[in-house]
């Protein structure tokens, strides 16, 4: 089966500096792929290239085997939540979610599940503008998920959650993935990435250092145990040594 998303040789230069240098990996249906990397690694820029928020300077973005050349092609495949996205402040949360559910043809059960998973129930009647930063970001995530696109791309979606909410949100995202939904996201916290990711992409200075499951990444650094943070440090050291 063709991957939902296939990135090959993604290149981006900004101000004469190469900020992405040939990033390549795939996202399969029903898979959660998490991009991690130090600050300035190019995680957000990579996602922006995927969703078409920036022009691609090199490489290719394919969705289910077809090159995603235009907006319509991308729109048929993916939904996008930018970091710190703030949904329409003047609208009530329920209105925002209803509109997304209507566009995506989402059933009432899915809407309820997403509302519960993202702890939005108490805020449905509130205007989005009066919510806290974290609450607004959760509304933006719910809106994207209700569009029911095969792939949802999220930039730092879990940063604004408290620990309990994060657990519920991770459960929801896993449940959606089990139902065949693919997710590509950046995550800053290693333990969250470890918990939610099917596969992890380690990005450093615009280059993909490694892609794989946690077990595969451990194997890549020759370890049988150790958390993602240890593997991350080891891979970075290995990358520097190789350079």
């Amino acid at each position, binding site marked *: 089966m063709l991957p939902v998303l296939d990135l090959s040789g993604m290149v981006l230069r900004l101000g004469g500096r190469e900020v992405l240098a040939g990033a390549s990996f795939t996202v399969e249906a029903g898979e959660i792929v998490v991009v991690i990397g130090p600050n300035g690694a190019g995680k957000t820029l990579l996602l922006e290239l995927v969703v078409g*928020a920036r022009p691609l*300077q090199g490489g290719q973005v394919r969705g289910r085997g077809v090159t995603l050349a235009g907006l319509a092609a991308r729109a048929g495949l*993916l*939904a996008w939540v930018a970091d710190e996205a703030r949904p329409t402040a*003047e*609208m009530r949360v329920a*209105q925002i979610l209803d509109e997304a559910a209507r566009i995506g043809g989402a059933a009432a059960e899915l809407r309820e599940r997403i509302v519960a998973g993202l702890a939005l129930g108490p805020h449905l009647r509130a205007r989005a503008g009066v919510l806290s930063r974290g609450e607004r970001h959760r509304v933006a995530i719910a809106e*994207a998920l209700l569009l029911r696109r095969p792939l949802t791309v999220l930039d730092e979606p879990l940063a604004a959650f408290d620990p309990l909410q994060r657990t519920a949100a991770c459960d929801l995202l896993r449940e959606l993935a089990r139902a065949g939904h693919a997710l590509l996201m950046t995550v800053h916290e290693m333990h969250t990435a470890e918990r939610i990711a099917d596969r992890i992409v380690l990005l450093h200075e615009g280059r993909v250092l490694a892609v794989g499951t946690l077990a595969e990444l451990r194997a890549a650094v020759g370890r049988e145990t150790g958390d993602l943070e240890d593997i991350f440090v080891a891979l970075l050291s290995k990358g520097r040594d190789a350079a």
Partner: protein
Amino acid sequence: MRRELVLVFGARVTWAVAALVAAVVGHSFVLAVDLYGQASASVAAGSLAAREFEPLLAVLRPTVGGWSFCVTLIGPVLAARVLAAEKDRRTFHARLLALGSARRLMVRKLLAAWLGLLLLAAPIVLCALVWAATGGHLDVVESLVVLLGVVLHAGWIAAVSTAAAAWSGSTPQATALALLLCVSPWILDAAGEFAALAWLAPVQRLSISPHLAGFERAVLQPGAVLWLVVAVLGALALACIGARDDWTRRRRGGSAALVGAVSLAALLVGDRWRGGWDLSEARHSSLPLAIADAVAELPAPLVLDIGLDRDDARRAQLEQDVVLRLELVRPDLVVRFPFDAAAADAGSRGDAYGRILVQVGDRAVETWSTSRRELITLLFEAAQRPMPAWEYPPYAGHPRVLGGGARSAIAVVVYLLVPLLLGAMALSRPGERAR
């Protein structure tokens, strides 16, 4: 579309701006009514001068002028915000992907911005109703033509502001660019009034003002409507291109240049399409009917060589009083200004300054008068044809002196009630939490 409408009408800033514009429009209306009343008092005895009292030009036009000035300066803030707010909130690209079409999103943004600006125009209608309610005369058809001009003007500002927002990264950038674009016609307009700016003349017709002038006199000109529609569609197309963040700069620039060139060509076609229908009461903006019919039959070419430069007030009067009326019946009228070609200063004008050469077919006569009747008479003289009787259809005029009570009522409505109502609407809208 619901989201766009909520973005406009659910925002505090929209109603706050509407309250401000209502106060300015109301003030324009009160000043116009006061002046009209003072002038009317002098013809209360029913003299012939009463026929010159047209509420269209003396009351409605200044009220619209107040709106026009205000909406040019504040309208872009509202109109650009409809799109730019989503860029600030980092949801713009998500919305593009959700709808799957830049065109659909831009059309929604444009329509919402347009409706927002029409909210700002509501005080004009209210002032007209107040005027009618206090016994003032208002012709429905000519008032509707004036309002059509307002609607199209609002559409132009909405479209230009939407395009500016699409090409900008944030609300401050979008607002600054939209303001610059909306105010730029004032610079072009100045070219028509100052000899020092005569070098701007080739682009003067790219200003929106000449195309709105007919509406203000209740003259419906298809060319002006076409010009405004093309300007709106061109700006919409530019907005669609500006929204495509996935395109390279070269592709966006090339597409924008192409759209600009096509729009420019279409604007020129609209500009060349002269003529129209005078829908003012008693056809006040036209020549007398019999004269108009006879002028339409005069042989071509019909040429006016006007030896006046841009600094001369007689020239503006001639353009508005004679040229506009002649163009209604003779769209092929050629008007030339010999003093525009040479950078003539007052000392080098010579004896030819002030001379107007009236040419019909191969015959020409000259005059130094700028009187409408004199020039029309010369047209027939040059054509060696008899001139029909100069008779306008009966128009009594509508002088109106407002009593103290009516005047106070108007002041309360336009200075207090309407701005306060709109201000209350602004306060009832929820604010946005910063973090």
